[in-house]
């Protein structure tokens, strides 16, 4: 164990850390804000409306891509991600319009990853071949649970059988398939989760996102919890055991975690999400989409209007971005540390300090390494399994 001021701080004259935005990749995030129904746990920007004029939305997305392209000349696009909302409610033509425009705007990387989040309902599954033809090569299915009562409690409209069928079809149609599960649910025991996760691993493609249920402000669950009507969530100890069991089962099935809640067969990690966790650049379009664009030592955070109609009007008027904020050196380093420690690749001390020279104080690192929460390999800091479970505390500790 190291202590004191003995951490290696190699900062070459040309501060190469500043160029790693490019190394971490460049992505496009497209937000589709509509859902057939709002789920009680969801705090994402989603809206339920009767009818959506998809042609008008496609036009607005095209305009936004053209604008974003003009702001990022010469970038190589390594990923496109359709998130939501429920992007599988997008008509195939709408998806195709976005992808065609993107292809005309940026150079695509040879191995570009194009992901679409989909609900495992039958309506959505019917569009899979169309999405594939438009260029989508990866889907992420919101399965959420493999137990009927839990699906109902989570407000999901699909059945366990729908999920199995959709997953089967997805695996035939797309190169890469992931699905989401929510665990540490009300009344769930360790053994319940062991059985359910084992079934899930049988069905799994190359990627799994396994989230512990979090009651977020602004959700229906939150309102219920505030009123005292949300009982039976596992306590801290059981939640920790469930997390540890998850690691054990996934490792055994060849799908180790590469981020707090994400598991993949080696090489099948979500390239798009790694852009976030490696603090790369991405353009964000659609209502409520965020983006990060680096240029020299500058890094700009972009935001768009949350309300679909407001965003549509702004995009049609020529600029969908409602706010551009230049991140301070301290904020840049803070985001890098917070996002980077989620990834099992960890963070590079030099890069953090190139952003802000007071980042990652040696005494704090030494304490956290001493506590067995972080490990240092060369100039890379990673969380230990125990550190990962208390990552919020680790990040707070490292914050200035």
């Amino acid at each position, binding site marked *: 164990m190291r202590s004191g001021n003995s951490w290696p701080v190699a900062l070459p004259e040309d501060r190469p850390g500043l160029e790693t935005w490019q190394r971490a990749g460049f992505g496009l995030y497209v937000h589709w804000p509509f859902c057939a129904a709002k789920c009680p746990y969801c705090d994402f920007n989603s809206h339920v409306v009767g009818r959506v004029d998809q042609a008008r939305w496609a036009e607005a997305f095209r305009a936004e891509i053209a604008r974003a392209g003009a702001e990022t000349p010469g970038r190589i696009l390594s990923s496109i991600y359709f998130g939501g909302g429920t992007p599988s409610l997008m008509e195939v033509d709408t998806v195709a319009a976005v992808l065609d425009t993107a292809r005309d705007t940026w150079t695509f990387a040879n191995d570009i990853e194009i992901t679409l989040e989909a609900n495992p309902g039958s309506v959505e599954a019917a569009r899979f071949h169309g999405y594939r033809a438009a260029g989508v090569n990866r889907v992420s299915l919101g399965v959420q649970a493999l137990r009927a009562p839990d699906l109902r409690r989570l407000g999901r409209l699909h059945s366990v059988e729908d999920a199995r069928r959709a997953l089967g079809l997805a695996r035939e149609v797309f190169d890469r398939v992931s699905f989401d599960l929510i665990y540490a649910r009300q009344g769930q025991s360790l053994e319940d989760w062991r059985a359910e996760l084992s079934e899930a691993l049988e069905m799994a493609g190359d990627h799994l996102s396994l989230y*512990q249920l*979090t009651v977020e402000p602004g959700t229906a669950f939150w309102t219920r919890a505030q009123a005292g009507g949300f009982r039976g969530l596992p306590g801290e100890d059981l939640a920790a055991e469930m997390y540890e069991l998850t690691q054990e089962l996934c490792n055994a099935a060849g799908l180790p975690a590469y981020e707090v809640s994400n598991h993949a067969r080696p090489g099948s990690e979500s390239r798009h999400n790694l852009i976030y966790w490696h603090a790369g650049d991405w353009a964000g379009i659609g209502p409520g989409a*965020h983006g990060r664009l680096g240029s020299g030592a500058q890094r700009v955070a972009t935001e768009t209007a949350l309300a679909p109609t407001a965003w549509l009007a702004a995009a049609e008027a020529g600029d969908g971005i409602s706010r551009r904020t230049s991140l301070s050196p301290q904020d840049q380093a803070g985001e890098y540390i*917070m996002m980077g420690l989620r990834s099992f690749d960890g963070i590079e001390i030099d890069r953090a300090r190139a952003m802000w020279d007071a980042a990652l104080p040696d005494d704090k690192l030494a304490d956290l390494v001493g506590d067995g929460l972080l490990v240092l390999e060369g100039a890379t800091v990673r969380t230990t399994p125990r550190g990962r479970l208390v990552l919020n*505390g680790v990040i707070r500790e490292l914050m200035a």
Partner: protein
Amino acid sequence: MSTPLSRIRNFSIVAHIDHGKSTLADRLIQLTGTVAERDMKEQLLDAMDIERERGITIKANTVRIDYPAQDGQTYVLNLIDTPGHVDFAYEVSRSMRAVEGSLLVVDATQGVEAQTLANVYTAIEADHEIVPVLNKVDLPAAEPERVAEQIEDVIGIDASDACLISAKTGVGIPDVLEAIVQRLPAPRGGDPDAPLKAMLVDSKYDQYLGVICIVRIVDGTLKKGDRIRMMKTGGTYDVDDVGVYRPAMTAVDRLGPGEIGYLNASIKQVRDTRVGDTITHEKKQCAEPLPGFKPSVPVVFCGLFPVDTSEFEDLRDAIEKLALNDASFSFEMETSAALGFGFRCGFLGLLHLEVIRDRIEREYNIELITTAPSVIYHIFMKDGERIDLHNPADMPDPSKIGHVEEPRIKATILVPDDYLGDVLKLCQDRRGIQLDLTYAGSRAMAVYDLPLNEVVFDFYDRLKSVTKGYASFDYEMIGYREDNLVKMQVLVNDEPVDALAMMVHRDRAEMRGRAMCEKLKDLIPRHMFKIPIQAAIGGKVIARETLSALRKDVTAKCYGGDASRKKKLLEKQKAGKKKMRQFGRVEIPQEAFISALKMDE
């Protein structure tokens, strides 16, 4: 306008808290038309919010009532409303010396309480004529005969002609007024032409007028323009104004023998005046001051620190302002490794401490950390020197100490006999020595010799809790005694926390230490590492607990769109932690400092 002595009656009201003293005073004022109906509000005499809210009187107040009696004469009745609490026992005794009689108000549904006893004995010592008044006789639970009997048994005064009243409804109030005139004596002696001799009953600070003194004239005459002298403090002042309270301040030409009123003499701070001092004329002084003067001495000490360390100067300002109106509390700057800059303050008792603390928090809007109350220990060093220890953190090297003496009190507890066993156990657990145990009806009176340090923190709370609120308690200081007292340190993650250090009896140290460690284990939030919590005497650990490490605190989902929001959330949490106090790597919440010392036995 001096009134003939024969038509003056000066009196106070003795009552337990909640037995209706202030309500009775309100009724007397109201019935005699002293205050216009529209100005009437509950507890007229209790000027401060805190007094009104807690139903307690901190400062003596006085009111002059003109009463046309049944004999056709109009009498001047001067009521002094005295502080009823043991913390202000000396102030009570001075107020009592200023009047000749007392109304003893007892709740006819409750009976005599310990506090009533202490104050009625003070009245008897001051040679008062006492008129028993049984209040709340309109309530179904009232038992006036039984309570009258109890007054005779316990206090030993005749209660056969007690006034039966309901201060709330006004029933019986005219009888009380008649009894004051007929049964209480007129002021004794009093020569208007003799040199001025007046007692300073109390003084208070008014932000517009400066210090106002309440005075009782014994001999001579006091008027505007007089040059007066305070015989103990030696201060001399020109009298700007004299007057009486009706209860609004009303200027008069002069105050003569037997009268009670106020004087205003441009005195800057209350500290310049001493309750019980004798006031005379500078030119023509009286031969002898009034007997019985003693300066007030703080007995309970604690540290007051601002929660927000940047508010230290505001705290200093608040304390200095409060000190203007309260000569009985002392303060000096204190530095704590844990808590930063604050003040070590001395108080007359626990209530006094709470009142001052509440006023700082409420009137000056400063959140405070209050350290464990402590008493003054006499540390006798081997070299013969005596050190008065106000703060356990300042304890000298034990190897150089000969012996330690602690202050003891005589506590009187009145309790329904159903709860007697619990009370005796509590007193025994607090190292009490039983001095007396008697019964009056179904109530027991236990008298204990107790160490003050066992009482200062939560004895009263515990007493209330084990007796479901039925016990009453009073105490007086009875001096110092040697005992096996040691300083117990608390170490959190191997760092000593000075604010939690305390003096304990060696035999009780393990128990206290264990309780403290267990309490802290619940009060300190879990950290990312495990934290040993230890109690130690000298270098020897006597109790230990381990706070296990936090197991899980991680955000499940965090993608590009979440970065700003999640980061803000973590920053907010981090800022929240700054409100805690940092000891090495451990953050301890404020409330731990007080809560840790409350013992659940």
